[in-house]
């Protein structure tokens, strides 16, 4: 059976041409608007592996952690003097030494944690680049401020625990907390 033939092929629908042009325009816009941002994002992820990125993250974390311990240390000495504890006594030296070591440990571990977290973030960033390239949804990334807040909370918790664990200072810190609360209440009531 023969249906003839030799006629010209049917023309493409005008709607198909319009869709192709729409796709081209959208892709061109992606190139102009989003590709530069993606390129910056890729560059930023590689920069996370740079020394300066680690130095910033670890330096900030160490400063925050030192602050958490030093605030408590500043309260400790006057409180011990006020209780008539001799600063040259072995009890004073031991207590102060134990807390200083705890400070060293706390600051060191929190700074080290900030470095490891930076490595995590760098790998997560590169994984996100891969996901973007595969057309998959990228993971939400924690920002530098979020990471610093986490370090700060960790430092406060560690310092609280270290000072509470130290038997010689536990009572004094209870007193300081009570005095501060009383002071606050007096101000409010006054």
């Amino acid at each position, binding site marked *: 059976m023969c249906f003839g033939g030799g006629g010209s092929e049917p023309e*493409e629908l005008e709607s*198909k*041409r319009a*869709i*192709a*042009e729409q*796709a*081209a*325009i959208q*892709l*061109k816009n*992606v*190139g*102009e608007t989003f*590709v*530069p941002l*993606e*390129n*910056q994002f*890729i*560059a930023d992820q*590689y*920069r996370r*592996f*740079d020394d300066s990125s*680690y130095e910033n993250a*670890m330096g900030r974390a*160490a400063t925050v952690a030192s602050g958490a311990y030093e605030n408590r240390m500043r309260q400790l000495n006057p409180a011990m003097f006020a209780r008539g504890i001799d*600063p*040259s006594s072995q009890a004073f*030296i031991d207590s*102060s*030494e134990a807390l*200083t*070591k*705890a*400070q*060293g*440990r*706390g*600051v*060191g*571990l929190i*700074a*080290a*944690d900030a*470095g*490891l977290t930076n*490595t*995590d973030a760098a*790998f997560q960033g*590169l*994984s996100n*680049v*891969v*996901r*973007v*390239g*595969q057309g*998959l949804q990228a993971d939400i990334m924690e920002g530098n401020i979020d990471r610093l807040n986490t370090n700060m909370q960790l430092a406060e918790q560690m310092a609280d625990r270290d000072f509470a664990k130290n038997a010689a200072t536990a009572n004094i810190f209870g007193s300081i907390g009570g005095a501060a609360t009383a002071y606050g209440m007096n101000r409010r009531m006054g």
Partner: protein
Amino acid sequence: MCSGGSENPYERVFSQLNTGVQNEVRPMFDESYNPYENIPMNVPRGRGAGKRPADDLFAQLIRAQTRDYMTRFAPVERDLTGMITRTGTTSLPDDLMRTGDAITTAAENAAGQQRRRLERFGLTGNTDIGQDNTYISSLVGGFNDAIDRDRDRRSALIGGVGNVSSTSRARTKGMGGY
């Protein structure tokens, strides 16, 4: 190339690549690179248009996307998978060194503070951190943490990259699509 001088890590990494690889990944290191800047936006009409100009335009778009993927993203995939080792990732030695430095510096600073504090009262104490159990246990804990986290990172990368590779396999079997 991206700006920033010789200290720019981007340029430093780039300069360490051999010439062939440099040519391959150059666009990835160029932040102004736009893979779609030369694509046509109109379906050709008239005599020279071809039989199926809309299909031809679609094909050009798909090729541009493939070129983009090969130029900007595939090198990162190769780079990332190259960082996975049998036990963790290539970042472990640097992580261990940074961990050790951070803990040692903090312990030395704390020992210095304690020495100065005692000296104010005319006292001396033992501030040698080398014999200090707190310092040693911090180091061990820090190193263990670095190793554990590196192992976790490896698992996460393999899981993530594995998902990506299964997506690619699905695409080549016609089960997915751009």
